[in-house]
């Protein structure tokens, strides 16, 4: 049977996964509630989104979501992959690859959000 290390993901990644989990329940909950449970917001279009982003609180929640959700999602993928990859070098390469994907998405997503604020 394949041996895998007792601390598969690293303790900080584990702690951050929990912190981002709680933040996601709050931020994603707010995001979904505002966009999909309030009737006047449900017709999603550019002007509506731009108007919502005039609220600093909503801007903070939505751009925070981008970073927090990317971290939680990509680290979650890493946790699953690490159950199948036990080689240290391959694990390190996967970690770097996922950070790269995350940063590219973060920069692109943040750049896109600025279009609603202009």
């Amino acid at each position, binding site marked *: 049977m394949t041996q895998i290390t007792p601390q598969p993901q690293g303790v900080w990644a584990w702690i951050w996964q929990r912190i981002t989990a709680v933040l996601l*329940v709050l931020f994603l909950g707010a995001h979904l509630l505002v966009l999909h449970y309030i009737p006047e917001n449900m017709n999603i279009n550019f002007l509506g989104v731009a108007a919502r982003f005039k609220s600093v609180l909503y801007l903070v929640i939505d751009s925070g979501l981008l970073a927090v959700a990317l971290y939680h999602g990509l680290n979650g993928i890493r946790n699953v992959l690490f159950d199948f990859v036990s080689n240290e070098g391959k694990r390190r390469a996967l970690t770097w690859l996922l950070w790269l994907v995350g940063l590219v998405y973060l920069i692109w997503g943040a750049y896109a959000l600025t279009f609603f604020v202009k």
Partner: protein
Amino acid sequence: MPLTKHTVYPGRGLGMWAFWLHRLTGLGIAGYLLMHILVISTVVGGAGSFNEAMKFLKAPIFVLLEMGLLAIILIHGLNGLRIVLFDLGYGVKKQKAIFIALMLIALIPFVIGFAIALPHILA
């Protein structure tokens, strides 16, 4: 003691289903997140491209798919709270009852969301 794949695996019964549900819903949501960011970034092409993308995604089939998304987000989010609770040292002994209770709680926002979406699915 080094762990084996066998000992890492979290058991059988309801706990096993909770584990697999958490994994599969997590992977599904992560995949959706990456698509979602790309869809929203159509705004880089101007307000027109964004509005066109939003209009396209109002088709009944996408609203129906969104109901699946809502379900897996509720399952993953509420079960995730259960995991955080256990890590803080609470509730481990009542893990099955807590799982069932959380899934019943998940039904409430799901039914409300489904009721809101239904006219758009049947449109």
